[in-house]
């Protein structure tokens, strides 16, 4: 099979950085009241700054596809290929701008690149990793000599005050409020892109993709993060089963929710996948030079460290890199935005290994990517 390299990266973060004090200025005060949970959740996730594609009146300034296109353009501008030569476009997002057609079609239209093979992956944080895997495999099989991969996320539309105010019939017990509000202080917007080629870039450094693996555990765990269900016990209706979409919204079935009680499972499962890969001989903790982990919250970093240490598989913390605290948790775009910034700002050399991990709490999918730095 062909070798595959990430030869260029790009990223796009909409608008100015928004600090913790300004978050509610953008997302809005629900029913005019300040959140009681905000401070504590922000303290624990450690995020200092993030970007939103909506303005202070909650009007959309950038569509998700606009951000995807901007990141993809930057990636192509930094590459050695002409945009018209892109063979495959593989795109992941949690939620496209339209229910249909697929997000990839809209991104292709925005990029104006002809006759590509198209893939849209659907999911949450791991959707972009699925898109990356599809592109990686296509190049390995020699179907294309390059592929443009984009992960893009516009979460703020789900987090604006009017969404919560419209859920007038949602259960208002403390727990449901917490579940529905939790992600408001976690997620933000952005996009990232990789260009994959079957040879390294002629100049500068590229990342060879050695392997990618994922382990999904939807069979063993209930849904942890969702949009489309009211969160009421025993409710079988999904958002489209309501008579009108307005009814679904009233019932809280279009709010984004995180079942916080289930959330810690993602740490265990993330470590579990890593231990499986160690067992298979795919990776060794000692051989990792750079560890890029899309943990969604600083709190989880501590938990991961604890478990890796307990399992004797700790990767020393000086090898960890993240830009979560400054760029926010941009869901499926995070790892792309992270590697892009890593590539441009960090010290690394040919032969270094870069190990990436993207856990998705939706229904528990964990993804691992193993890279080696090569010099063109």
């Amino acid at each position, binding site marked *: 099979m062909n070798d595959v390299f990430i030869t260029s990266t790009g990223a796009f973060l909409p608008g100015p950085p928004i600090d913790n004090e300004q978050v509610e200025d953008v997302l809005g005060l629900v029913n005019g009241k300040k959140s009681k949970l905000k401070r*504590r*959740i922000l*303290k*624990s*996730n450690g995020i200092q700054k993030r970007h939103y594609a909506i303005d202070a009146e909650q009007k959309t300034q950038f569509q998700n596809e606009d951000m995807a296109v901007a990141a993809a353009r930057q990636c192509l501008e930094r590459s050695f290929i002409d945009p018209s030569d892109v063979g495959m476009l593989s795109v992941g997002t949690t939620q496209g701008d339209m229910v249909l057609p697929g997000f990839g079609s809209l991104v292709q239209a925005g990029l104006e690149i002809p006759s590509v093979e198209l893939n849209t992956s659907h999911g949450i944080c791991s959707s972009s990793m699925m898109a990356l895997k599809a592109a990686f495999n296509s190049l390995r099989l020699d179907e294309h000599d390059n592929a443009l991969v984009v992960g893009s996320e516009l979460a703020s539309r789900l987090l604006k005050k009017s969404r919560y105010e419209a859920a007038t019939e949602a259960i208002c017990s*403390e*727990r449901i409020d*917490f579940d529905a509000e*939790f992600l408001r202080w976690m997620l933000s917007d952005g996009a990232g892109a990789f260009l994959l080629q079957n040879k390294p870039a002629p100049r500068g450094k590229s990342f060879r993709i050695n392997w990618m693996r994922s382990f999904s*555990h939807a*069979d*063993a*765990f*209930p849904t942890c993060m969702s949009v489309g269900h009211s969160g009421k*016990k*025993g409710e079988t209706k999904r958002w489209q089963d309501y008579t009108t979409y307005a009814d679904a919204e009233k019932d809280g079935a279009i709010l984004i929710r995180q079942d*916080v*009680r*289930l*959330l*810690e499972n993602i740490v*265990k*499962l993330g*470590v*579990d996948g890593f*231990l*499986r890969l*160690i*067992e298979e001989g795919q990776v060794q903790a000692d051989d990792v030079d750079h560890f890029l982990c899309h943990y969604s*919250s600083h*709190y989880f970093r*501590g*938990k991961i*460290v*604890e*478990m890796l*240490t*307990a*399992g*004797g*598989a700790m990767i020393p913390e000086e090898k960890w890199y993240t830009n979560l605290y400054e760029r926010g948790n941009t869901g499926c775009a995070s790892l792309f935005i992270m590697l892009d910034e890593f590539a441009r700002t960090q010290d690394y050399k040919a032969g270094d290994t870069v190990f990436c991990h993207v856990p998705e709490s939706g229904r528990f999918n964990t993804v691992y990517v193993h890279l080696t730095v090569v010099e063109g």
Partner: protein
Amino acid sequence: MENFALEGLSGEGEAIDEVTENLNPIAQETLRNLLRVWLDFEMRLGKVPVLRRLDLGTFTRKDYMRLLMNLRQQVIEGSRWITRAASSFDRSHAQLRSIVIGHAKDEHKDYEILEKDYVALGGNKDDIVGGERNLGSEALHAFLYHRASLPNPIDMIGAMFIIEGLGEKMANSWADKIEEQAECGKEATRFLRYHGENDETHMQRFYEMLNMVAISEERSKRIVKTARVVGRLYAMQLEELDIL
């Protein structure tokens, strides 16, 4: 609920690092393999009907009473197999024997707490005392007793890893959910809370023992296998609640 989330959110990592970093290399590898066994076990537990209901929020008081009724029949045997294991260690394992005896002493009356929980729920003490082991409990008990009766049963720490792990990692979160869903107060979750609070120190004891006994590949494999069997049979014991 909020407590869990916020407690979890602001929690600090526990200081197990120092203990585990000082393990010998084989113990370290054993621990890594045990952790994998544990995670598989947890995934299996996630599919056990009664625990799935607990995850989904549809667990009832009746479920809880049945859970206690079934657990009690195994718990009451706990100190028996632990003391049996202690008596199976010969003079060359005297130090280990002391630790195991200490452990048995800690645990030998925990079934009484469990019985009180059952009564607090409105159950009749005679019912729980007169209950039978379910098929999974039979298998688990037989296996543990068999292994504990062999000379120098060092692999019992694999069993300890799973059973103490349940207390350390699961008991408190189960108790939280049970109190909410079975609509009972803390007076009915004392058994789980007891293990949730004490099994962390028991785990420290576990690391100490692991370092002493995991000194060959052969032993390491046996420890891991026993842990795997215990996990499987424990899950079976809980699955039986819905097969009765």
